[in-house]
């Protein structure tokens, strides 16, 4: 490396020690700058931009004289652009402190500077790039250290000095802008390794160094912009735009056109237009001479960069007039083996002929791939040619695709277009090995902190549109089918027992009276199967009802819901519908909308499942034995009719099992993660009434219609509660226990509920459930509230819980429910053999997610074991 052990000077940076000291100092200065207000920063930003603007012409002159590249008048435009356009773009942008706030969502975005930026400056655009990088650094309260290219160090440093002076006069801390006085690769590497972020502009070598420095880098790479002139293009505009761009600063902008591909049928016209406007077409011999002059061993001859067409032609021994604008070589190959297919950084253009638009696109793809992956591409076309345009936009792997625009001026943004950010550092995406694909701006120099307050998710209360209740209400409620809804054809779904025992007769009588045609399907088994649902759906499709009436227990209502789905959406996939969700409001699967073909009426004949008011249905695929638990509010019945006359003659066992099921619904809904004030009242009244009326309903049956009716209502009320607050672990475990060991669902719940309550009540659970409104483990208090509402009270919450559990055990005993799983005749061997699988499946059950205590697998297993042995 170049620098050995020269004397350390702090004011003149030409050695590693001085540089490191300078950078350490700048980091300290930046800490002060980081405290500046938006107002202070904007004043500095304005002053620096103005100063650069005023010095644009002297700086342009200096850069051209120092580098012997480019054109003063064009560099003046670049400097003008770098100051004025950047200022205009960001003058009102908030970059300090709170830049965004949303009080209803409780979020806030705070912008902080990154620290010390290192800026590597190229030779081709030294002053404009320096102005640009310093301005965006000042606007974002960062310090910036400039690493100039040795060829352009004086003009680069002069630009930095002008901006520093203006910034300091406007209040910026002295030393907030720094530079290397004697650049070398060693110092450039040091700058990159010791800064907080790198803004690298330059060739691939420099960009690679930046990326390998170990610091975050915004590096950009080589461009090789291909242009297509389509036959639909405005040829005069296209040709002059290309000349305008290609001659700009003698072709040194990285987005500049390097080749033009012209469709065959306008080729001559385009060529003549180029000639007319002062371009020179090389003969094949001259083309060969030019190749040898501009490309050496596959790389660009440094001597031709940024030179005029005339000068380059002279170097190649080609005679052209002094005012020649561009040298154009007609070539055929677009791959890297053709010298002229490379980036030329000079007013030299390759021209290709294409037989078709597709061929032209292919050539452009190749040129981009070999020399300018991710950079810029350009096309001249009639913008009504949308098909061609779409094809082109899809094919180009470039981060800027310019339409009818000179690409030098178009690529840097905001001059010839809207919404392309003004910038002199153009990201090339992953294609170009870059971390950004847009034009680099202030947003890339900020650390944005997002402050997010704890908020609770939206909840809801959803019920069927109509819930009709009171003894004897069914015929009156059904009137609406005719008078309000004007239905013509009803499809009744029930089970065989109810059908045989004429439970459907009051419904069919009413339908007859109203003149509504009907059909009845009663082949529904206790665990409704997909086969029977399909059979019912087939009958439905044949009959084409506009109303479905489900009358029965949970099975008939669930089966009817599935038939409804199949009737409305014959192609529905149950596996998708059964996909588990964490929050039903955010689920992945979007349930198809229901009700286009038929209205759904649910009439329960037992008091337990609540299916008449819930969005749930369970169906078993008998071929694979898979159970599909479906849940979506689309499955809510439209009308529920709770008429105790339909429940009068329930057998005792059904009263017991469905009654205890309803109690479990209410208890789990009350302690669920999603419980709310809207569901709590419903759950409490359900619990209270079940305690009070279930024993009498069980004992006296039809003889105590008051108790029966209270149970019917309590069951539906619990249904509304858990339709919205959901259930918990007891149901997860009961689902699996019931299906593995053929226990009625209500009984399975009854055997597990008290152990699950003890488990949930822990004030230091292994893990609590995840839902924002559940702030800390408080399920014990919730059980106690529930107990107290039922006038059960101990000396403390633990005692109250045990008293509540005692009452539940007493209730179970009164209605003939046995104490343990073992008591139901399940052998120890069978039970233990199924235990692991039941445990895994219960863990994965949809109900587990809403349980207030998140269960570990081993914990689930222990609960099963306790419920089996009763100890």
């Amino acid at each position, binding site marked *: *490396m*170049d620098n050995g052990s020269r004397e350390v000077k702090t004011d003149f940076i030409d050695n590693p020690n001085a540089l490191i000291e300078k950078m350490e100092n700048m980091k300290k200065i930046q800490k002060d700058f980081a405290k500046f207000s938006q107002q202070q920063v904007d004043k500095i930003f304005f002053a620096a931009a103005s100063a650069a603007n005023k010095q644009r012409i002297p700086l342009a002159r200096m850069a051209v004289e120092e580098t012997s590249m480019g054109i003063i008048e064009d560099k003046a435009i670049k400097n003008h652009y770098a100051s004025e356009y950047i200022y205009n773009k960001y003058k009102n942008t908030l970059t300090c402190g709170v830049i965004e706030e949303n009080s209803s969502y409780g979020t806030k975005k705070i912008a902080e500077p990154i620290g010390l930026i290192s800026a590597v400056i*190229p030779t*081709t655009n030294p002053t404009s790039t320096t102005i640009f990088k310093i301005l965006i650094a000042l606007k974002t309260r960062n310090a910036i250290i400039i690493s100039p*290219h*040795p*060829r352009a160090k004086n003009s680069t440093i002069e630009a930095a000095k002008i901006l520093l002076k203006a910034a300091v006069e406007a209040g910026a801390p002295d030393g907030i802008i720094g530079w290397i006085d*004697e*650049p*070398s*690769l*060693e110092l*450039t*590497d040091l700058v990159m390794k010791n800064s907080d972020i790198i803004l690298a502009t*330059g*060739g*691939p*070598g*420099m960009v*690679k*160094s930046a990326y390998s420095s170990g610091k975050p880098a915004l590096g950009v790479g*080589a*461009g*090789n912009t291909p242009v297509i002139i389509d036959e639909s293009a405005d040829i005069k505009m296209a040709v002059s735009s290309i000349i305008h761009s290609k001659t700009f600063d003698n072709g*040194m902008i*990285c987005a500049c056109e390097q080749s033009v591909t012209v469709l065959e049928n306008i080729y001559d016209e385009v060529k003549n237009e180029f000639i007319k406007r002062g371009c020179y077409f090389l003969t094949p011999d001259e083309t060969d001479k030019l190749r040898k002059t501009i490309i*050496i*061993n*596959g*790389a*660009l*001859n*440094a*001597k031709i*960069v940024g030179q005029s067409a005339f000068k380059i032609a002279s170097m190649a021994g080609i005679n052209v007039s002094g005012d020649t604008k561009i040298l154009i070589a007609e070539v055929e190959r677009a791959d*890297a083996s053709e010298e002229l297919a*490379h*980036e030329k*950084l000079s007013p030299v253009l390759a021209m290709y002929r294409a037989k078709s638009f597709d061929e032209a696109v292919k050539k452009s793809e190749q040129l981009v791939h070999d*020399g300018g992956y991710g950079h810029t591409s350009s096309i001249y076309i009639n913008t009504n040619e949308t098909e061609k345009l779409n094809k082109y936009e899809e094919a180009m792997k470039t981060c800027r695709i310019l339409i009818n625009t000179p690409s030098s001026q178009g690529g840097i943004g905001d001059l010839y277009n809207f919404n392309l950010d003004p910038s002199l550092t153009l990201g090339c995406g992953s294609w170009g090995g870059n971390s950004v694909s847009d034009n680099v701006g202030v947003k890339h120099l900020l650390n944005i902190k997002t402050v997010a307050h704890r908020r609770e998710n939206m909840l809801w209360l959803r019920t069927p549109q109509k819930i009709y209740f009171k003894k004897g209400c069914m015929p009156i409620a059904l009137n609406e089918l005719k008078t309000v809804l004007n239905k013509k054809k009803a499809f009744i779904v029930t089970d065989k027992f109810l059908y045989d025992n004429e439970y459907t007769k009051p419904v069919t009588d009413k339908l007859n009276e109203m003149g509504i045609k009907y059909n009845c399907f009663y082949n529904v088994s206790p665990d409704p199967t997909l086969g029977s649902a399909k059979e019912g759906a087939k009958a439905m499709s044949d009959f084409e009802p506009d109303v479905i009436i489900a009358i029965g227990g949970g099975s008939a209502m669930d089966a009817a819901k599935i038939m409804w789905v199949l009737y409305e959406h014959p192609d529905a996939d149950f596996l998708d519908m059964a996909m588990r969700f964490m929050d039903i409001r955010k689920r992945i699967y979007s349930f198809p909308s229901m009700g286009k073909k038929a209205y759904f009426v649910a009439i329960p004949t037992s008091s337990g499942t609540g299916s008449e008011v819930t969005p749930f249905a369970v169906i078993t695929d008998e071929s694979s034995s898979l159970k599909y638990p479906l849940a979506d509010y689309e499955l809510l019945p439209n009308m529920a009719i709770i008429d105790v006359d339909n429940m009068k003659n329930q057998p005792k066992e059904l009263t017991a099992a469905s009654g205890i099921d309803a109690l479990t619904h209410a208890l789990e809904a009350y302690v669920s993660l999603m419980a709310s004030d809207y569901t709590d009242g419903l759950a409490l009244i359900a619990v209270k009434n079940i305690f009070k009326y279930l024993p009498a309903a069980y004992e006296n049956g039809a003889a105590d219609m008051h108790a029966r009716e209270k149970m019917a209502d309590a069951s539906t009320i619990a249904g509304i509660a858990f339709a919205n607050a959901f259930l918990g672990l007891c149901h997860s475990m009961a689902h699996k226990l019931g299906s593995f060991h053929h226990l009625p669902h209500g009984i399975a719940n009854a055997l597990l509920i008290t152990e699950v309550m003890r488990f949930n009540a822990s004030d230091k659970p292994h893990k609590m459930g995840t839902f924002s409104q559940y702030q800390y483990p408080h399920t014990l208090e919730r059980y106690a509230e529930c107990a107290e509402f039922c006038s059960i009270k101990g000396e403390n919450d633990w005692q109250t819980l045990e008293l509540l559990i005692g009452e539940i055990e007493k209730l179970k005993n009164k209605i003939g429910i046995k104490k343990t799983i073992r008591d139901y005749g399940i052998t120890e061997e069978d039970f233990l053999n199924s235990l692991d699988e039941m445990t895994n499946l219960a863990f994965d059950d949809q109900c587990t997610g809403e349980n207030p205590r998140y269960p570990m697998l081993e914990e689930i297993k222990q609960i099963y074991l306790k419920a089996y042995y009763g100890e």
Partner: protein
Amino acid sequence: MENNIIAQRPGKKIYRVGDTAVKVFDSEYSKADILNEALNQARVEQTGLNIPKILEVSKIDGKWAITSTFIEGRTLASMIKEDRENLDKYIEKFVEIQLQMHSKTAYGLNKLKDKMNEKISAADLDATTRYELHTRLESMPKHKKVCHGDYNPTNIIIGVEGSAYILDWSHASQGNASSDAATTYLLFNLEGDTEAAQLYIDLFCKKSDTAKQYVQQWLPIAAAARLSKGNDNERDFLMKWIDIIDYQ
């Protein structure tokens, strides 16, 4: 011994003494360079490549000398000269031997990048050009292949029994094989043998499955390294190869 001189290079003379070749260095020659050359050769010996074996490092009449086995045979260079018609065949052999060498690694050899960085710094170039070259070198992939550094047909001996030996390990290093190929390509061009140069680079790229551009990227570096030798008559040619620019 004077009668048995077999080669003479600036600063050193090589003699044949019985079954050995003795390289005697001038008294001004850097001791470190001499010992380094012997060490390089010893390290490469361990890779199993066919090369003369180091027998002794000693002082003869007060001058440092490296004694190694003498290889009976002819240099590839002289064979090419006599039988130019079969240039293709010789270059193919030449590339195969080089690729076999590149397939080896030798722990402890100097790193090619360090060597090249030093040579760029030592070359008579302006700061801008050195900066460009250092940057270019820095961005090149780092490898650990055995590189000869002066691989040309005069350093290949085809022994009487037909097997090939590589001589002169004074410039050996470990690094990127494409750099070694770029140096070889440059040496052919400096000899004015563009035909052999072209044949060589095409065959090297084909047989090693390397893109030509990738070898070409090393050319300015190889040229700068050569420039550091300070041969005035090569300067114009080398400068043309050096003064190129990275695409922006």
